[in-house]
């Protein structure tokens, strides 16, 4: 009953007129921006983050969360109608787009909407029961355990986002190094500042995020010169009763898978949707139809996507460690507002925590009643040609960077990271692990130094503590597995050379995650 009491407390805070407005605004703007090609949740949040600075804390967090799941829904809409993949909607491109080809766009969109609602609802139950309990576990964590958890996060994120451990890990390390720029907290030494005064406080997160995700993406789209054909088909939303009945089991299955995978380090929407899709392929009553455009192929993954997006808040709020790049951005937003996420957050800011949890469900309702029926109007965004859109995106990047410190100099930093981000993109280096590394870098250093201080310089502390030993063990298994797979491939191929099967082409994102699909499928079946 405690949970119900807490939830009621949360609704009390979330259901003020002002917060409702922020929630609706976040959902709507998030959906609109998320629809645009090349703008996934990460770029949408970094573009819109500065808008929340002038809003009171509770409202700002609620609006940001709204932007996040709004952007996710927008992603799946563009995936279903036009087969534009984003990180969080790769799977929706498979069956969703097939349904569009069959003329069932409306049904696919409705299925995605309802399944997201179911997934979100299940996840909120998990969130409100698990987060306080996990917060208790958070108190058991020592510095060495935090280090091990962050390292595991790097490994898992590298694995999920780029499909290749080596690439992702390298980017996370580059991120950690970038996080070192600025004044060292322990000694006051200025590191890597090149004697530039504005680097004393470190590089701005928004500059990195907007450079790598905003500007680099714009240039990539311009390089590709691809012309989008806007969606012009008819949309008939309401399904028949038998169709509706088919949504439920898949959506429930997806919700459970998503909720579980969302909590794990490095987890989140991307891996959850692949796992749910794989599960439906094995377990669904209509498994022979999956891949040809059937309801189950959309429902399961949409529910998992949404559920994982919610439960990935748990590690952030209970332990204080963001587990993927989106959560890292969320954490930055929390810190800007003067709140340190972690085991103490639920105790010290119960209104914010439970208000946020309640607003997630309200956001779900908004998505269902606002976005699903209005989707045909949202789609008119695509009638705007890209030549008109991208100057506007650039302008928002500039305003976003500027408004953090009211400093025009920051725009130069963003431009520099735009260039670096473009280089990374062309070298097929995923920027998401970099962002996570950047946020976790200073925390990793702090905890590493503390652990070393406590153990008097002996590395045994990482093995002696049960939590860190377990986490490091998982890392070891992952690394070993990857190496074995690589060596086996090498031995099996006749000329001892691995032929890339379209793996990791920067221009088309879809093939790279296909390998991730295989691996996450293996992960899911291994559990």
């Amino acid at each position, binding site marked *: 009953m405690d949970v119900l009491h807490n939830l009621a407390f949360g609704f009390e805070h979330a259901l003020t007129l002002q917060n409702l407005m922020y929630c609706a605004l976040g959902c709507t703007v998030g959906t609109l921006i998320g629809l645009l090609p090349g703008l996934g949740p990460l770029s949408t949040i970094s573009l819109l983050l500065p808008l929340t600075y002038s809003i009171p804390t509770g409202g700002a967090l609620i609006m940001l969360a709204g932007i996040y799941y709004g952007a996710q829904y927008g992603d799946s809409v563009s995936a279903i109608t036009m087969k534009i993949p984003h990180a969080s909607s790769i799977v929706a491109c498979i069956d969703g787009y097939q349904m569009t080809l069959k003329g069932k766009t409306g049904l696919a969109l409705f299925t995605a909407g309802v399944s997201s609602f179911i997934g979100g609802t299940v996840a909120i139950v998990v969130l409100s029961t698990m987060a306080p309990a996990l917060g208790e576990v958070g108190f058991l964590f020592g510095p060495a355990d935090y280090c091990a958890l962050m390292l595991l996060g790097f490994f898992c994120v590298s694995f999920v986002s780029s499909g290749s451990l080596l690439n992702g890990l390298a980017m996370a390390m580059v991120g950690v190094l970038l996080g070192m720029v600025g004044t060292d907290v322990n000694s006051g030494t200025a590191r890597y500042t090149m004697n530039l005064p504005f680097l004393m406080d470190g590089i701005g997160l928004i500059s990195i995020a907007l450079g790598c995700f905003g500007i680099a993406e714009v*240039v990539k789209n311009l390089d590709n010169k691809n012309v989008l054909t806007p969606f012009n088909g008819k949309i008939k939303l309401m399904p028949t009763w038998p169709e509706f009945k088919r949504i439920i089991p898949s959506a429930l299955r997806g919700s459970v898978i998503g909720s579980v995978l969302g909590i794990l380090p490095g987890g989140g929407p991307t891996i959850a949707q692949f796992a749910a899709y794989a599960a439906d392929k094995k377990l669904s009553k209509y498994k022979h139809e999956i891949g040809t455009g059937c309801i189950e192929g959309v429902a399961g993954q949409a529910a998992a996507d949404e559920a994982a997006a919610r439960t990935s808040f748990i590690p952030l709020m209970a332990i204080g460690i963001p587990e993927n790049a989106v959560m890292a951005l969320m954490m930055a937003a929390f810190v800007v507002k003067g709140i340190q996420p972690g085991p103490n957050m639920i105790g010290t800011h119960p209104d914010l925590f439970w208000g946020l949890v309640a607003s997630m469900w309200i956001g779900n309702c908004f998505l269902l009643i606002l976005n699903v029926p209005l989707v045909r109007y949202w789609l008119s965004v695509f009638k705007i040609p890209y030549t008109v859109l991208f100057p506007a995106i650039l302008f928002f990047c500039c*305003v976003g960077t500027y*408004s953090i410190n009211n400093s025009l100099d920051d725009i130069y930093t963003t*431009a520099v990271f735009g260039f670096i981000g473009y280089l990374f993109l062309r070298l097929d280096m995923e920027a998401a692990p970099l962002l996570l590394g950047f946020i976790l870098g200073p925390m990793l250093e702090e905890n590493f130094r503390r652990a070393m201080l406590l153990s008097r310089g002996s590395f045994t502390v990482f093995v002696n503590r049960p939590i860190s030993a377990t986490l490091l063990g998982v890392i070891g298994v992952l690394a070993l597995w990857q190496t074995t797979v690589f060596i086996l491939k090498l031995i099996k191929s006749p000329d001892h050379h691995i032929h890339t099967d379209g793996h990791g082409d920067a221009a088309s994102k879809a093939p790279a995650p296909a390998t991730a699909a295989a691996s996450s499928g293996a992960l899911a079946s291994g559990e």
Partner: protein
Amino acid sequence: MNMNNRNFVRGLCLMAIALVFGGVSFNYTLGELSRSGPGLFPLLVSSFLFVIGVLTVVRSHFVDPVPLNYSLKNISIILASLVGFSLLSQFVNMILGIIFLVFCSTLAGTSYSLVRNVKISLGLIAVAFAFKHLLGLSLPLY
């Protein structure tokens, strides 16, 4: 040793980044493990990154080469328009900056139209005014 192989160039890039950060970290006090100075952790991380770089290069020998393709035109245009926007906003005002941003950046687009650019500029200036007066951002518009 192909500079046009994306995997190979990536490994070289990583090693270069590691060398820069690792090299500079020697300028700071290293200390010892139990009482580490500001230089120790960056040195550890860059060493790890260097190893990853070496592994990437080694791996690129066993994997089919992927061509490295890039065009410097678009990224240069976009960066120039950002820098121009910032400079103009600083020394003149942001309205002029917006106009420059629109007219310069659209050079990278597939088609160029003066009338359309005027319309985009007007629209963005309106948005900027809304930001300033409705959301309370302090933009140096005029």
